[in-house]
C-alpha cells in the first residue's frame, strides 16, 4: 500500500490511476485529478519526503547543476524497481517483435513461392488444371496481395506509425525508409496486377515477396537488437543489485522490517551480524567491522564505532549496532554511483555529436538517392526499365541503415562505461572517456596516490649488542603517549610485529626534537640529531645508517637508552602494494608517468626510483600543481592528473582528464572526470585501457556502419549492373540492413569480455 500525497488515500501501486516521479521518489495517485494537482506544484506535496535535506531546491539554478527529477532508475529511492520495469519493457518489446516476426515469416513463405512462378512447384497444379495456369498464377498473386496486407498492418505497423509520426515532425528515420520501401513494392505490384496495360511490355510483374520478407527480416533484426541492448547495460544491474531490499528500523520503540524505500532520514536502523546496511548513516550505538569492498574497493573490513559513518550497500560482519539514517534514496553513495554511471552511459561522446549531424541529413539523402536511382534506370535502363527502376529504388530505401550509424558510438559507450564500473572505475561522461583514450602523460600526486599517505615503520637498526625487539620495545613504549604521526607509526609498527608496548612512567614531548620518557625505569630518548645533542648522546657510529635511510626518503630517528645510542628506527610513507605494477602497465601503454609532489626532492626521488618513475616534479606548492599541469598541456600533450581529490582539485580540473583516487565519497566523485573507487593506481591504467578499447570499438562500429552504407547504397542502386550485370535483390537488402544493426550491437557487446593488462583476475574489484 502506498499513500496518495494529495488526498492521503491508501492505494495499491498497481491500481494507481497515475504515477509521477519527482526528486527520485515515485508517487502514486488515486485519480488523475490528484495527479494534476501534484503536477501544478510537485515540490509542495513531495516535501514531507524531502524533510531530511530540506534545503535542497527542486529546481537547480544553473544549467551546470541542473536537477533532473525524472524517474530514472538511478535517482530513485527504489533504484531497483524502474530497472526491473525497464527490463520487463524490453522483454515485452522483444516478445511482441518476435510474434510479429513469426506472423510475417509464416506468410512470407507462400508469398515467396508464388513470386517465382518459373520454379517447378507452380507447375505441379498444372497437372490437374491443365491450361489454367495463367489464371492460377493471377489468382495466387491476388491472394498474395491480400495476405501481405496484414503483414504490413500488424508486423510492420511500427514502421508506418513511426514513419508517419516522424514525418509530422519534419524528420525521417529508419521507419520512414522501411515504410516507403515496402509500401512502394506493394503498390507497384498491385497496380501491375490490376491494370498491367499502363506499364510497358514485360514490366508488370508483382513482387509481394519483397514486402513480406523485408518486414519479417527487419522485425527480426529489431528483436535481436532489443535482446543485445539489454546485455550492454548489465553493469548497472549489478550495481543496483548491491542495494539492500529491506531495513530494520525502530518505529514507536518497536523494531519493524520495512522496504528500504520507506526508510526516512532520521530513522534509527538496527543492523545485525551479516546484515547489509540499507542506507547511509551515522552509528549511534554499538560497534562492528564493516566490509566496504563493494563501494570503496578496500578489501579489509573497517572498524566502526559511535559517530562513524556507514555506507548503504556495505556489509556488516560480526558486530551489532544501531545507526541514524542520514541519506536515503537517491542521496546515498550507492545511488550517486549508479546515477553517475547511468548519466555517463547516456552522455554523448564528442565523436557522437559529429555523427548526429550526419544522421540529420542521412535519411532524406537516401530518399533523394532512391528517386535519382529510379530516374536513372527509368531514363537509361535496358528494356523493362520501369520494373528495374522500381526494384532498385526500393532496394536503396531498404538497404540504407541509419540505425547502425546512430547506434555505433552510444552502444560502445554504454558497454565501456559499464565495464569500467565493474572494476570500480567511474567515468563521468563520454567526453572524459574519449579524452582518456588520447592521454599521453599521466601526472601522479605522490602522497596518498602512489603512497599510502600515512607513515609506517620501515626499518629497525639496532646498534651492535642490542636486540631489534628490545630497541623497538623502548622506542614504541616511549612514543606511546605521543600523538605525533611519526610516533604513532612506530607504536603501530611495533604492535604489528607482536612487540609488547608499555606505558611510559614519565613522558615529555620536545617539539621539533622528539620525546623523552622513562620506560621500565630507564631513560629513553627517541628523536632527531638535535635531541641527541641536547642530551649529549654520542651518535657517530649510527650516522652512516641514518644517512642511508634518509637517502631512501625515510625519516630516521635515533633511540637512546640511559644516555647511550642503541639504534635507529625509520618511518616512511610507504608505497601501495600495486603502485609499481600499475605504473609499469601505464608505461607499457606508452604513457609518460610523472610524479608531482610538494615533498622535498630527495624523498620524492627515492619514491620515484622504487616505482620506476623517471621524471619528478618535487617541492611544488599545492597552488602550483595546476600550473605544472598547465605547462605540460602547453607542450601540446594530453595530460591526465591523478590525485586524492581535495587538495589536488585545481590540478584535476586543469588536466584534460582528472582522476580522483580513493574514497567513494561525493566530494571525490564531484571533483573528477574519472573516479576510482578503489585506492589502487591500477584503476588509472584500467581506465585508460578501457577508454582506448571503447573508442577503438566505437570507431570500428562507426567505420563498419559508414562503410556498409556507402557500399550498400550504390550497389543497391545498381552501380555494378553496367559492369557485371549484378543487381541486388530487395530481400537481400533487407537481410543486410537487419544484419548491419545487429553487428553494431554485437560489436559493442564484445567489450564485455575485454581483458585489461592492469587487472588480473584476483585484483578485480567488485563495484
Amino acid at each position: 500500500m502506498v499513500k496518495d500525497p494529495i488526498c492521503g488515500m491508501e492505494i495499491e501501486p498497481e491500481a494507481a490511476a497515475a504515477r509521477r516521479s519527482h526528486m527520485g521518489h515515485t508517487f502514486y495517485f488515486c485519480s488523475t485529478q490528484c495527479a494534476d494537482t501534484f503536477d501544478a506544484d510537485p515540490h509542495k506535496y513531495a516535501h514531507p519526503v524531502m524533510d531530511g535535506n530540506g534545503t535542497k531546491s527542486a529546481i537547480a539554478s544553473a544549467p551546470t547543476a541542473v536537477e533532473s527529477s525524472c524517474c530514472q532508475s538511478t535517482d530513485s529511492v527504489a533504484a531497483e524497481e524502474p530497472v526491473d520495469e525497464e527490463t520487463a519493457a524490453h522483454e515485452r518489446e522483444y516478445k511482441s517483435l518476435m510474434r510479429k516476426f513469426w506472423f510475417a515469416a509464416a506468410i512470407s513463405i507462400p508469398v515467396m513461392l508464388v513470386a517465382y512462378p518459373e520454379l517447378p512447384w507452380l507447375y505441379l497444379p498444372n497437372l490437374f488444371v491443365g491450361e489454367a495456369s495463367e489464371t492460377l498464377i493471377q489468382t495466387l498473386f491476388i491472394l498474395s496481395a491480400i495476405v501481405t496486407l496484414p503483414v504490413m498492418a500488424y508486423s510492420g505497423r511500427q514502421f508506418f506509425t513511426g514513419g508517419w509520426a516522424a514525418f509530422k515532425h519534419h524528420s525521417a528515420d529508419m521507419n520512414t525508409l522501411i515504410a516507403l520501401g515496402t509500401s512502394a513494392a506493394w503498390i507497384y505490384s498491385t497496380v501491375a496486377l490490376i491494370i498491367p496495360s499502363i506499364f510497358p511490355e514485360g514490366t508488370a510483374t508483382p513482387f509481394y515477396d519483397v514486402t513480406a520478407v523485408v518486414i519479417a527480416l527487419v522485425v527480426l533484426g529489431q528483436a535481436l537488437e532489443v535482446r543485445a541492448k539489454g546485455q550492454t547495460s548489465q553493469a548497472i544491474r549489478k550495481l543496483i543489485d548491491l542495494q539492500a531490499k529491506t531495513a530494520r528500523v525502530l518505529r514507536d520503540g518497536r523494531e519493524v522490517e520495512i522496504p528500504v524505500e520507506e526508510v526516512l532520514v532520521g530513522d534509527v536502523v538496527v543492523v545485525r551480524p551479516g546484515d547489509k546496511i540499507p542506507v547511509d548513516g551515522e552509528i549511534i550505538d554499538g560497534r562492528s567491522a564493516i566490509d566496504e569492498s563493494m563501494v570503496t574497493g578496500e578489501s579489509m573490513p573497517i572498524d566502526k564505532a559511535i559517530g562513524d559513518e556507514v555506507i548503504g550497500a556495505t556489509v556488516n560482519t560480526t558486530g551489532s549496532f544501531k545507526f541514524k539514517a542520514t541519506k536515503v534514496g537517491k542521496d546515498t553513495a550507492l545511488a550517486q554511483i549508479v546515477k553517475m554511471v547511468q548519466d555517463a552511459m547516456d552522455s554523448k561522446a564528442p565523436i557522437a555529436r559529429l555523427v548526429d549531424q550526419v544522421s540529420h541529413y542521412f535519411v532524406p539523402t537516401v530518399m533523394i538517392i532512391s528517386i535519382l536511382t529510379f530516374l536513372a534506370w527509368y531514363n537509361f535502363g535496358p528494356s523493362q526499365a520501369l520494373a528495374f527502376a522500381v526494384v532498385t529504388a526500393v532496394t536503396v530505401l531498404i538497404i540504407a541503415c541509419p540505425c547502425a550509424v546512430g547506434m555505433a558510438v552510444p552502444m560502445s559507450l554504454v558497454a565501456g562505461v559499464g565495464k569500467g564500473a565493474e572494476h570500480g572505475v567511474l567515468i563521468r561522461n563520454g567526453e572524459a572517456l574519449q579524452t582518456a583514450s588520447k592521454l599521453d602523460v599521466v601526472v601522479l600526486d605522490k602522497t596518498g596516490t602512489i603512497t599510502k599517505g600515512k607513515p609506517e615503520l620501515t626499518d629497525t637498526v639496532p646498534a651492535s649488542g642490542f636486540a631489534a625487539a628490545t630497541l623497538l620495545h623502548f622506542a614504541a613504549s616511549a612514543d606511546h603517549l605521543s600523538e605525533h604521526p611519526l610516533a604513532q607509526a612506530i607504536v603501530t609498527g611495533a604492535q604489528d610485529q607482536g612487540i609488547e608496548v608499555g606505558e611510559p612512567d614519565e613522558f615529555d614531548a620536545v617539539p621539533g626534537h622528539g620525546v623523552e620518557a622513562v620506560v621500565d625505569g630507564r631513560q629513553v630518548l627517541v628523536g632527531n640529531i638535535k635531541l641527541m645533542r641536547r642530551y649529549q648522546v654520542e651518535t657517530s657510529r649510527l650516522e652512516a645508517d641514518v644517512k642511508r635511510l634518509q637517502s631512501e626518503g625515510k625519516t630516521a630517528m635515533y633511540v637512546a637508552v640511559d644516555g647511550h645510542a642503541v639504534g635507529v628506527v625509520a618511518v616512511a610513507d610507504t608505497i601501495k602494494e600495486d603502485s609499481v605494477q600499475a605504473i609499469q602497465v601505464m608505461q607499457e601503454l606508452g604513457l609518460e608517468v610523472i610524479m608531482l609532489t610538494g615533498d622535498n626532492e630527495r624523498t620524492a626521488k627515492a619514491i620515484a626510483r622504487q616505482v620506476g618513475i623517471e621524471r619528478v616534479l618535487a617541492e611544488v606548492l599545492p597552488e602550483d600543481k595546476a600550473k605544472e599541469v598547465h605547462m605540460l598541456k602547453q607542450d601540446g600533450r594530453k595530460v591526465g592528473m591523478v590525485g586524492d581529490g581535495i587538495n589536488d582539485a585545481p590540478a584535476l580540473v586543469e588536466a584534460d582528464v582528472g582522476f580522483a583516487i580513493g574514497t567513494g565519497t561525493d566530494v571525490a566523485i564531484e571533483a573528477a572526470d574519472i573516479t576510482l573507487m578503489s585506492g589502487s593506481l591500477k584503476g588509472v591504467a584500467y581506465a585508460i585501457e578501457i577508454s582506448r578499447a571503447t573508442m577503438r570499438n566505437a570507431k570500428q562500429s562507426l567505420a563498419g556502419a559508414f562503410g556498409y552504407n556507402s557500399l550498400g547504397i550504390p550497389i543497391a542502386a545498381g552501380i555494378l549492373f553496367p559492369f557485371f550485370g549484378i543487381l541486388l535483390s530487395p530481400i537481400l537488402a533487407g537481410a543486410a540492413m537487419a544484419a548491419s544493426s545487429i553487428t553494431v550491437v554485437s560489436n559493442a557487446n564484445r567489450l564485455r569480455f575485454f581483458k585489461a593488462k592492469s587487472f588480473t583476475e584476483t585484483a578485480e574489484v567488485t563495484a
Partner: protein
Amino acid sequence: MNIAQIIVNVTGITLIALIVWYFWLYRKEGVQVTEVGGVQQVQIKVKGGYDPDVIVVKRGKPVRLLFNRQEAAMCSEMVIFDKIDQSAKLPEGETVAVEFTPDQKGEIPFQCQMGMLRGKVVVA
C-alpha cells in the same frame, strides 16, 4: 522523350525539391509555455518525435518539461540534453519531468540517444 517520360522526370525532380524543403529548410514555429506556480511548464508527447518540439521559454525562470512517451519503440527511450548535461529515461506511458533554469539566451537542443528525434528549447 515522350510525354510519360517527361511527367515521370518532372515528378521525380519535384519530389527531391520537396524533400529538401520539407526536411531541411522548413522552419518550425515554437510553442510558448504556460506558467504554473512560477514554473514554465509544458507537456511534450513523445511519439516518433517530440510534440511540440520547439519550446520558447524565458530566461532565468525554472522550466519543467513533462515528457510522456507513447510508444514502445526503443529509439525514443531516452531524452538527452547534451548542452546542460541532463538526460532522462522515458518509460512508456509515464510522465517524466526534466527541470532546469536557463540562465542565458540561446538554444538548448534535446534529442533521443541516436539523434534521430530532435527538439529544442529556445531561451528568449
